[in-house]
């Protein structure tokens, strides 16, 4: 049996797979993954409204519609959020409703979601499904290994695979090395990692998974701190992305886990995020002027002040960021400071770097999720990330008139007036 997942991981996985569950109407999902889908909806709604104080109900319906959640799902999700005491739904005598937001901003809401899901007494198949998705988040795995590890019956495994496939959260291919079925999650792996096959010739899947887990718990791990043979091979094979930084301590490599659910158009964001964190890790580990704060504190300060205060090693330590046009170096007296170039991509990359530094996992939003959140923020400022990985076989196309109506509704105009 595997080690039990933490509440936080449970909450994260439920959130991750929810978009797939919501997008597909399936009797199997509704019967076998009912509680998971329910908590996932609550998680997605929480992600949509986090950062706001008050949201109009109709505005929320429109934004949730972008994530393929209909009003029934939204209402159910709001009930769950009320049970969690994360929102108040206030209905006026006119019938108009508003959502007063109390989503935790400091507490770990994924842990609370995971706890909530557990208290709903999920079916065993739901627990197994979440465990399998968590495994596949690390690395693609042989189907038979997962079946044995989680003691899943053949029938249940077929159900999990079928539900996963139809929801776009689990897929399979035949291993080129042994011909056996390998499961992977398109939520986390955009492409088949061919280098993985080479690693699998030398090491067991559990060993590879453990190595990736090690890096994920400390993104931007220095190669000098690697003593594990599996990790060493993974780095040399190019399976794990690395970023080089060259400064007063010499050139060093920093390791990251592969990107999650990333489209080709978003890879740049992740590259920038890795570069940002690698430069900070260099200061943490090697610089003559040692970083005394946790990296996420420095990065939060960079986000707030848009610069890093002058010190003598800025020029070399942050040169990768200059090359990537994340920032520029400015001379102040005899020393140098780093100034952030405030483009939306750079700001998103910085947010992602903060998440990688503090949580170990990051998510790059796709355009649809970004649009959903922006619908609630007329100023155009992007505030929160919502994890989605959606297979848009039929994306709705809006006319200009429809877009105007949507924006008016979100802006507070009653739907019966429009």
């Amino acid at each position, binding site marked *: 049996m595997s080690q039990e997942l933490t509440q936080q991981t449970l909450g994260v996985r439920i959130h991750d797979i929810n978009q797939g569950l919501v997008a597909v109407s399936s009797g199997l999902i509704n019967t076998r993954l009912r509680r998971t889908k329910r908590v996932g909806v609550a998680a997605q709604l929480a992600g949509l409204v986090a950062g706001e*104080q*008050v949201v109009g109900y109709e505005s929320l319906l429109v934004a949730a519609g972008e994530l393929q959640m209909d009003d029934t799902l939204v209402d159910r999700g709001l009930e769950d959020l009320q049970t969690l*005491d994360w929102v*108040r739904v*206030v209905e*006026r005598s006119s019938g108009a409703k*508003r959502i*007063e*937001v*109390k989503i*935790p*901003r*400091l*507490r770990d809401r994924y842990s609370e979601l995971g706890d909530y899901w557990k208290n709903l007494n999920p079916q065993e198949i739901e627990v197994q499904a979440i465990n399998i998705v968590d495994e596949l988040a690390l690395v693609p795995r042989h189907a038979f290994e997962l079946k044995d590890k989680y003691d899943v019956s053949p029938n249940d495994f077929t159900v999990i695979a079928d539900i996963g496939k139809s929801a776009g959260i689990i897929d399979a291919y035949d291993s080129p090395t042994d011909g056996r079925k390998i499961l992977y999650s398109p939520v986390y792996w955009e492409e088949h990692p061919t280098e993985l096959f080479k690693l699998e010739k030398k090491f067991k899947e559990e060993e590879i998974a453990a190595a990736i887990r090690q890096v994920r718990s400390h993104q931007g791990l220095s190669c000098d701190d690697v003593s594990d043979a599996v990790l060493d091979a993974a780095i040399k094979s190019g399976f794990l992305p690395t970023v080089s930084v060259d400064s007063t301590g010499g050139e060093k490599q920093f390791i990251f886990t592969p990107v999650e659910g990333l489209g080709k158009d978003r890879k740049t964001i992740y590259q920038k995020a890795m570069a940002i964190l690698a430069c900070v890790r260099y200061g943490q580990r090697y610089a003559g002027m040692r970083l005394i704060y946790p990296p996420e504190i420095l990065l*939060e*300060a960079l986000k*707030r002040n848009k610069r890093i205060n002058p010190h003598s090693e800025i020029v070399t330590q942050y040169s990768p960021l200059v090359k990537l046009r994340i920032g520029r170096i400015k001379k102040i007296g005899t020393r140098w400071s780093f100034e952030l170039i405030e483009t939306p991509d750079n700001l998103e990359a910085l947010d992602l770097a903060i998440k990688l530094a503090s949580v170990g996992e990051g998510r790059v939003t796709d355009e649809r999720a970004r649009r959903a959140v922006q619908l609630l923020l007329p100023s155009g400022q992007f505030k929160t990330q919502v994890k989605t990985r959606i297979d848009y076989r039929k994306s709705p196309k809006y006319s200009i008139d429809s877009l105007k109506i949507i924006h008016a509704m979100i802006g507070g105009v009653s739907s019966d007036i429009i």
Partner: protein
Amino acid sequence: MTSFNQSNKDLGLKLITSRIFKGFGYATWVEVDYFVHTYGKTYSRPEVTDLDVVGIAFDGDLTMRAIVAECKSPEQGAAEDLLKLLGALNLLRASRGYLVKERIADNAREVASRNGVSCLDHEEALRLLNSLEPDAKTKLEGERQGYEAWTAVINNLRNDQSLSSVLRYLRRDFWIYKAWQNLHNLLYLSQNVLLPHLNPENENHRALILEFCRLFNISVLILCNSVLTSRLGQIEREVEVQAFGGPKARRDRERLYDEITRALPKRNTIPNPLDSRYLSQLKEVVTYYLMSPLAASKTPMALQQALFQNYLGVNNMYYGTLNTEFSEVTIKLAKDSSELLVGDDSGKGKEFLSQLLAI
């Protein structure tokens, strides 16, 4: 000590002044007793003075402003009244004082103006009130009804011995303790006295809860100001520090807790009181307050209106309803701090707040 049972000759002036302060944008309290702690032969808390009208408001950065009024109908004794008022200003660290009397001698006015105190005789007070209020007469009548309604609540409750500590805290203790002390005291009284003993079906009990929410809200706002001015980028940590009196006071408590747990047998270890459940909830409330400080600064006025209009049923005290007078965010934040005060697992607290939560 001012008694609600005595006839109150100065009441008319107090109500006019309270209305004027509301017009200035302050939340007001009429007849506050001010005590101090002394330790002569024994520890006691003798009365120092009574404050006729106190007004509290918050700026956009949540800096608190307090104003105090001394309202006395006899023309004589202006100098003494002025000195008393100056003392009260100092005690409350109020920024401004008002001396309101039927008539005020010129020499008293001269001394007052040099000391940052405004003087208003009866006619001047009414003139000022009329300049602030389109319908001063009706609103003044509303002030009277509000005063009588609240007095009736207190008189109905004072015979209940289980509430004596609560009523005492409300009328005097709150005004002498520091804001961070009030946070803990109010939470404690709420969870250990109010919720166990009060009945949500009882209108007087509901009004009492709202008044406690009003005082708690003031304490939360002062905490928010401490966080905003010291380290806005580290809300979580600053709440942990400022909610216990600052770095030194916090450290002293940590040491005390360490020593107590060392002294106790292992099976009797107490949960860490410096990391209680309500502290994490307080951090969340402070975070939301600091997301919208301007809206938060209006919450005392919003809770005042909720108390008198929605809980005591005094309708002619205000021009509109809470929804028309305040933003959705202000109303939401007022609910947030109130729920923190009376929140409990049984849901009883929310019953008391049902009228507020429904707004």
